[in-house]
């Protein structure tokens, strides 16, 4: 039997649905996702919960999984995510190519940073395999691959010096921001949209806060006061997004990335706002479960099959974009697309659950 609905799967399902909506620019429902009232968005939540789930691999403190088995499972997971990423980008490239040919519109070949794949295919295909060339909206899984590749280091630190894990992560994070470190893209000039050296902070925070000891335990003990402190930060985030209450980025002191708002570098204000947001929202799940019975079950099913759902959702979002281009969008069409997509995502998760049940 698949595990019961729970808060972590619920919020991961929530992140998956909102990522799908955010990846269809212009769709009517885009204005209702939480990025319109928050400095952080579903991507932050997704990566944080990926770190949280890493706890399942390492086992409980009193009964830790042997290190060899942990490393084997991590390697297996990296391979699975990598293969899933390559599969969906190939499907996406084929979708763009098909749409361009059928609609006689070569401009579709340029969507989502795909131009290099068609205009410079020799180099771009090497880049796709090496993850140095990424399609827009298909760039979270490469980040996930790198984070999982870094995970053995994090887990070793955690196993032998658990209190050092967060300081090590913070040191890497601030070094990245101060010295503007990033991973380059190739053959296009530029850097990764999600800088793994910065975004690892979410991954490690998720892992650290999932522990019932150490910082995770401290947070649980002081959650009431932390929520009180978090509310003004969440409100300030809302004002920054809605009223642009943030200093001119050219006027901030050096090192600038400590003060700028940047998704690529997951800059401190974004991370702080994200932590405040989840601190406040962590109280919501019991009420949602009690009052809106069907939704936790639906989203939890998506959340516990997150890789499958993410992959199908990514392809569906591109499909929706192409259909919106053909049929020009509109409220009714957008509603039909969303409902169809939600049904397909549920079916994907249901099939994955069934497959797991059969294995057992």
């Amino acid at each position: 039997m698949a595990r019961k609905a729970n808060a972590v799967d619920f919020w991961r399902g929530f992140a998956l649905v909102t990522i799908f909506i955010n990846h269809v620019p212009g769709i009517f429902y885009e204005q209702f996702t939480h990025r319109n009232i928050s400095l952080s968005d579903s991507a932050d939540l997704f990566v944080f919960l990926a770190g949280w789930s890493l706890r399942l691999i390492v086992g409980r403190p009193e009964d830790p999984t042997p290190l060899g088995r942990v490393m084997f499972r991590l390697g297996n997971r990296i391979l699975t995510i990598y293969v899933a990423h390559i599969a969906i980008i190939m499907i996406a490239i084929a979708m763009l190519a098909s749409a361009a040919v059928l609609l006689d519109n070569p401009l579709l070949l340029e969507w989502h940073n795909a131009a290099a794949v068609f205009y410079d295919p020799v180099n771009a295909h090497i880049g796709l395999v090496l993850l140095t060339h990424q399609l827009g909206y298909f760039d979270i899984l490469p980040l996930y691959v790198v984070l999982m590749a870094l995970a053995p280091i994090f887990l070793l630190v955690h196993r032998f010096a658990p209190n050092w894990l967060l300081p090590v992560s913070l040191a890497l994070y601030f070094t990245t921001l101060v010295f503007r470190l990033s991973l380059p893209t190739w053959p296009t000039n530029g850097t990764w949209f999600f800088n793994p050296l910065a975004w690892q902070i979410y991954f490690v925070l998720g892992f650290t806060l999932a522990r019932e000891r150490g910082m995770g335990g401290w947070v649980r003990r002081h959650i009431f006061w932390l929520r009180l402190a978090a509310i003004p930060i969440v409100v300030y985030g809302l004002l920054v997004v809605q009223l642009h209450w943030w200093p001119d980025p050219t006027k901030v002191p050096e090192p600038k990335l400590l003060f700028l708002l940047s998704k690529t570098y997951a800059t401190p204000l974004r991370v702080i706002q994200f932590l405040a947001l989840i601190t406040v929202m962590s109280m919501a799940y019991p009420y949602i479960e009690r009052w809106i019975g069907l939704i936790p079950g639906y989203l939890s099913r998506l959340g516990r099959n997150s890789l499958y759902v993410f992959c199908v959702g990514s392809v569906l979002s591109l499909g929706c974009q192409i259909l919106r281009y053909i049929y020009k969008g509109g409220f009714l069409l957008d509603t039909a697309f969303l409902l169809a997509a939600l049904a397909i995502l549920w079916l994907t998760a249901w099939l994955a659950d069934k497959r797991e049940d059969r294995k057992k």
Partner: protein
Amino acid sequence: MRRATRLGLAAVLIGLLAGSASAQTPPQAKPKSQISGQPAQPSQAVPTISQECRTPGLPRAHAVPLPNVASALKKNKVISIITIGASSRAGRDVGAGGYYSVIERMLEKSVKGLDVRIHDRGVSGELAADAARRLMTEVALINPDLVLWQLGTHDALQQVPVDEFKTTVGRTIDWLREHKVDVVLVGMHYIKGLAKDAQYQAIRRALNEIVAAKRVMRIGRYEAMRVIDHANQAGVGETDEFTLTEDGYSCLAEYVARALTSGLFARNKPRPRVLPGKS
């Protein structure tokens, strides 16, 4: 139609609609420099155009000045450019560094001792709002003299509301100017199937209105590609939509370089621009 002829026609229109005086000026002409109050060396002012893109006998137009680029040039002969809105890997024969490296080489060749630093932040298919958001951070980090922004095409295809597009682009241009950064806009692509598309044409009109209201330099790619298409329809040759788009990219670097150079030597008080291809 032979490729050289098609590219020649593209050159005519791109040159005209960039408002680039130099595009119409024969290579031997001597534009008056506003830099350091010294007359520019003619050989330094006009980048050489390749044979297949060269188009003689164009009528004269007026350049839009690029005061911040001119000032940077005057101070230390280093120009820093951010390119955004499209990938440098698009188009035919991109080569190492893409077509932005061609712009860099042409500019450096055209002005003696000039060091051009292009910071390529282009993502193909990116919407103007996303580019604008990234641009502010990039400007804060790089402190450029010029932004070269390709925009409009994908906003139209993704059904971005016209007013939202106008607001985003207008605000961003104002913000860049407040921060002493010049802007050159590269206009939309021409596709036959979109010639009567209401959304596509509305975004195109909006872009033209922004250019007129804000007095910014625009590279008129749409009009150039349309001329090629019309020539094809007249039976001169065959071009499909895919070839047409590649041609649009092929001469872009050269005409951007020429337009930038003409902007450097333009008078600071902009005169009315000639837009012969405006429809």
